[in-house]
């Protein structure tokens, strides 16, 4: 099957880029952004629903990740760690939105209609299904389809046996299918 997602530039491992950043070469962080931005954005769009919120959250997630790189003990776990940051940022944005508005569903809808038009072509059911997956299953789906990694590349990036990657993908498909068929 041809994956239409542009193939992510795979030069250099995550560890190498992180070491580069910590050694005073912050531009190397750009490689990590390019590598994972679509996956993070896909996760946040499912979580926050609105593209402008997702974009804002994705940007903030990467910036925070950069300033906290030294705290990342397992350098080969950058993506799961980044998703954790994105989850926190999404929660904060949710909270901020709720705090500065009147609590009424109509108001929220009204507000978002004023600020943006949501594209009709989006598969929101699918995005919500992906967003609701357990973290380990979500990681492989995001990397496979939104970051454009092959199963072999995922196994290398996440330091997992290839069989584990296909097993997780299989479980993720089953969960998504059940959710969609509901």
């Amino acid at each position, binding site marked *: 099957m041809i994956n*239409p997602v542009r193939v992510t530039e795979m030069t250099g491992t995550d560890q190498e880029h992180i070491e580069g950043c910590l050694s005073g070469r912050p531009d190397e962080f750009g490689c990590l952004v390019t590598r994972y931005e679509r996956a993070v954005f896909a996760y946040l769009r499912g979580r926050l629903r609105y593209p402008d919120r997702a974009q804002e959250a994705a940007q903030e997630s990467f910036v925070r990740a950069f300033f906290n790189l030294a705290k990342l003990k397992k350098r080969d776990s950058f993506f799961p760690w980044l998703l954790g940051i994105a989850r*926190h940022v999404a929660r904060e944005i949710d909270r901020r939105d*709720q705090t500065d508005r009147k609590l009424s569903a109509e108001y929220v809808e009204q507000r978002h209609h004023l600020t943006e038009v949501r594209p009709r072509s989006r598969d929101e059911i699918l995005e919500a299904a992906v967003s609701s997956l357990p973290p380990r299953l979500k990681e492989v789906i995001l990397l496979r389809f939104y970051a454009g990694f092959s*199963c072999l590349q995922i196994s290398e990036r996440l330091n997992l046996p290839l*069989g584990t990657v296909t097993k997780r993908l299989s479980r993720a*498909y089953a969960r998504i299918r059940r959710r969609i068929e509901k």
Partner: protein
Amino acid sequence: MQGHMNEEQLTALAEGCLADQEKHVVEGHLQQCEWCRELLGRTDQVRLRLVANAADFDTPSIEEPVLGEIARRTQTGEHRVSSLGRWIAFLQEAWSSTALRAASVSAVVVCIAVVVGVFFYEPSHAWSLERSIAAVQGKRGVQFAGSLNINGSRVECQMWVRGRQGESRMQDMLLRAENGATIWVSGNATYFYLPPDPVVYKDDAQTAGFTHWPGAAFLELLKKVSRTAEVDYRLDLFAARRLVVLKAQLIDVGGPKSFVLEFDPNSKLLVSLKTWNNLDASGDPVFQADSVTYLDSPPDSLFQVELPNGVVYRERDLTVASETIGLLATTSSGLSLPGLSEAEASRKIVEAVYAAEINGDLAAFKQLAPLASLWDDEQLRTLLAGSDGQESIAELIEVGEPRVRGRSSLGPLIVVPAVVKHQDGRRYQHKLIVQVREAGRENFSCVVYGPYGVPYLQE
């Protein structure tokens, strides 16, 4: 080949991850097995939908804005908070090295003190609980997102609490955990549903959530009745912000409790909360809210609960905190009423404890309800009358029928309802728990354990 392929094999085939030999076997099976072909087809539909959705993405790269923002924060110094984290991480690494430990000990202490001093010395952000109290005036609801300790495991949950209109007491509460557990307060009852057990356990009082919804009155009360309340500061490196930390401990009828509440010094709002069932905040918190959102006026629909068909309702047995048994058993406390039944004695002691409260006789009150001796007189007055004095009792209207609702190691636990009039003129239904001691003997005695749930306004 016998049987069917599993989904994992089919996924591996679809992803091109099977070795040639296994691929040959699986493809051979698929030619003969309609069931597996259908399963593969359904899996492919999901994959196609994912591919189509990913292709639909048309977002500009954020690489440039991210690097720009990093440069900006570095220049303006906003990243210092994170740098502090890195600095501390470095110090921790240094500390773990035996060779460095002795040499660096004084330097570490000095450096941390200096760094902390620089970051926290901002007098314009002086914080006080009063400011937080003012910040939540006018809000009537609050949403917590966090986790709950259920039988030693952490379960993510969300909880919504709504205050009564114009009052500090809680009106509704709904807690939903990711494992399906649901706890809610509706009217003067509390319900506990823990699937897969198809039973909803009911307390006929408000026994979950907050005695006062976490608005201004709750904070005011916390300030007044806490055994200790200390204010500290913490850097939330993750969110790149400074937080004010309030640590408080108290003992209530549910036993010892400690709280850690964190406030955003800018908005003055509560942003996180942890509670423990001990006084030193040790171990895993029983409840932890990582996110707290205040709401102006939560709608009724937020508190509606739908249950699966076939669920049955049962009354929940009453228990008391084991830490309180020692105080309840003290011989100098309680009443012995020879010749009366346990139910009659329970009514009498309830009448006596209300008389003590109305007359302001706190010594008598503590003798009848020994757990009250955990507070000093001022704290006890606040607990009884509310932070604004409006909840103090002016008159005992009637005492209802006692009911045995459980047992402790000392004997039966009897709930006695009563209707009282508060100073503000409103009538409330109270329920008190009476502990019968040495039941079955002629010389049994009883003490008041404490309230069963919170006072409930009679419309």
